[in-house]
């Protein structure tokens, strides 16, 4: 066949290919059945959590051969899209879903009786679980007085500090009560070691690039996010005071916070060089330190957070995870039993601490020996016990569909105040106060406008 004729025939071949493709793939679709997933489906986002559950699955499956547990790890964004589509529009969704607290916003934004999770309040009350689980752990999963999940954690916060440097300098941390004490005690360590005019050692690690540090301190110091009835309360005087003072820690001539970002190679280098003395460490973070910085073993110790004011709270809280039951599940009682199996198990609690450093919120599991084991990384301290001792003091986590937005506003304000402190060389919190008040008032207005738009929040349950 000549090239010319071939080219003329190509289009006809193209149409033929297209038709053949349609016929063949249609046939394949006719014969190929998408298998219905068998058993109780669990969707989770954290492979580490799921590793722990894997230990518990065989026991459950032996007792419930007709309803085996199927664990699925989804990425955070896939879990969110599929969960919301399932809750809102009835597309297939798992029976049990484990979610991080940032995902609760959209889930809780609707009318309270249309939330996609099963309301667990009555069950928890009936079975006495409200008393058996650390009370503060329920707060992020509560909206308008109803609880929609079993809490996974307590997440108390301590201060991990470079005991090698601190003890070499002869500093006694037991005499430190407040943040002021802490910074005063660590002052001698703040030095420019290489003479380049920049400080090479800061008393505390933190950042104002995102809201996380500011949020931990705000919660510790009693900052306000929402009132008891759920309306925004960003513009309180205490918030202004906290943020103004925090800004002078972050920046300006009185700066005491350095930023060694753990997520980056350069941040870990800074950490090894002794760039920061103290690290704000929730339980999971202390756990991840032992695995990500094995060469730093024996150089850190944990102490309760210094208090904001004398006599104040010596801990805070960060993050959070829950597991809930989808309302679409055919058998709520069965799902509830499975949920308790995964979350209340003593074996699970032990491994969760051993593998991930997370202390369980289930009080019955608190007396396990694993929590008293001395940690080689933290100079032989009984890390689990230290965190658990703080559990009753852990502040409530604000619960609102607009929680993420609120922390974003507060983080932005911390950022702006720090920039101001740097630019104008401000060391006294009092000079930042007026600006803090103005920024908070503006944020309050914006957040209120956003919340007022949502007419579902005010709608009572039927």
């Amino acid at each position, binding site marked *: 066949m000549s090239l010319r004729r071939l080219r003329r025939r190509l289009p006809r071949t*193209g*149409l033929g290919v*297209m038709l053949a*493709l349609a016929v063949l*793939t249609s046939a*394949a679709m006719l014969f190929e059945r*998408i298998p219905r997933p068998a058993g109780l489906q669990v969707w989770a986002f954290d492979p580490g959590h799921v590793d722990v559950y894997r230990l518990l699955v065989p026991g459950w499956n032996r007792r419930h051969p007709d309803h085996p547990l199927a664990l699925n790890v989804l990425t955070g964004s896939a879990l969110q899209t599929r969960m919301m*589509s399932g809750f809102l529009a009835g597309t297939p969704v798992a029976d049990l879903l484990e979610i991080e607290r940032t995902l609760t916003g959209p889930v809780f934004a609707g009318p309270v009786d249309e939330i996609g999770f099963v309301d667990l309040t009555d069950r928890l009350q009936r079975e006495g679980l409200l008393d058996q689980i650390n009370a503060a752990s329920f707060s992020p999963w509560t909206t308008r007085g109803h609880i929609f999940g079993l809490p996974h954690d307590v997440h108390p916060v301590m201060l991990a500090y470079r005991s090698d440097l601190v003890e070499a300098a002869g500093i006694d941390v037991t005499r430190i009560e407040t943040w002021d004490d802490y910074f005063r005690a660590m002052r001698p360590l703040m030095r420019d070691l290489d003479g380049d005019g920049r400080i090479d050692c800061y008393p505390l690690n933190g950042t104002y690039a995102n809201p996380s540090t500011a949020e931990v301190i705000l919660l510790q110091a009693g900052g306000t996010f929402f009132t008891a009835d759920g309306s925004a309360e960003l513009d309180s005087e205490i918030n202004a005071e906290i943020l103004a003072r925090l800004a002078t820690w972050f920046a300006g001539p009185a700066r005491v916070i350095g930023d060694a970002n753990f997520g980056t190679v350069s941040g870990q280098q800074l950490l090894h060089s002794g760039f920061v003395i103290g690290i704000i460490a929730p339980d999971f973070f202390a756990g991840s330190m032992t695995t990500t910085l094995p060469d730093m073993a024996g150089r850190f110790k944990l102490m309760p957070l210094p208090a904001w004011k004398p006599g104040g709270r010596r801990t805070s809280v960060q993050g959070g995870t829950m597991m809930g039951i989808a309302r679409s599940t055919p058998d709520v009682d069965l799902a509830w039993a499975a949920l308790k199996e995964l979350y209340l198990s003593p074996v699970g609690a032990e491994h969760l601490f051993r593998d991930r450093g997370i202390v369980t919120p289930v009080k019955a599991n608190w007396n396990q020996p694993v929590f008293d084991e001395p940690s080689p990384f933290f100079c032989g301290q009984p890390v689990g016990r230290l965190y658990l001792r703080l559990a009753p003091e852990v502040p409530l986590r604000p619960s609102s569909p607009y929680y993420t937005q609120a922390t974003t506003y507060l983080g932005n304000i911390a950022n702006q105040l720090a920039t101001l402190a740097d630019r104008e060389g401000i060391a006294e919190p009092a000079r930042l106060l007026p600006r803090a008040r103005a920024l908070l008032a503006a944020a309050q207005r914006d957040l209120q406008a956003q919340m007022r738009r949502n007419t579902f929040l005010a709608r009572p349950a039927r």
Partner: protein
Amino acid sequence: MRRRLTLAVVYALLVLFAGLMLTPFAFMLASTLKTKADFVNTLFLPDGDGWLGVGWDRLTLANYRRLFVELPMARALLNSAFLASVGSIFATLFSAMGGYALSKFEFRGREALIRLVLGALIIPAPLLIAPGFQNLWKLGLLDTYTGLIMPGLAPAFGVFLFRQAMLNAVPSELIDAARIDGAGEFRIFFTLVFPLVRPMVGAFLMITFLGVWNDFLTPQVVLQSPDRYPLSTTLAMLRNLDWNDYGLVLAGTLVSIAPVMCLFLLLQREFISGLTSGAVKG
């Protein structure tokens, strides 16, 4: 002499532009064949002492093996092929039928329908995302192929294109003659009219095939079961799975692009002439 110089400059520029246009493809192809370590260390193919100073022995098909053995790429390929071929064939057929009705028949309501088609041309797609989702939910078509395919089968754009093509290419006398010979209406359409607008058929098949194949937002919103995902959403999932394994992601991209490239080579001439015919004249 001057003429040849300008021509040389033109060629130089064309080759430069062609190189720039092809670079991403070359980068993609080379990256898919490398190990993770070689991806970091070399830009295109790894150095070595093979032919042309390239370490051919260090190339690997591991990324493709992973795509098809561990990951649901084969399934996604099948899903995409099904959605795009079935969707484009029916969209083309319905468009051609609509264009035929509006160009070769006189009937009451014709003018109104023509105006409707012209009006529908300016509806931007994002306007229909939210209400379309609600509509599919009402019809119980979420997470089904029907819900994904059906809304794309009545493109006003296609009806418009075929109407223009048939006004120009199909003589009414021919149709009348066929009727007098006693041919049925559908026989006239399929054996007489359809072949006369063959270039437009090829072009529009390709347009709609590309449209479905490359669509991301609609399957992302409508489908929720990963088994049903076409290539676009599967690939997005893959990227989330392992953010930094670019070799794997690019292998997935190559597998997604290659079939439409082949199809295009088959339908190239009709496609380009069909594309431009309307715009340049009108």
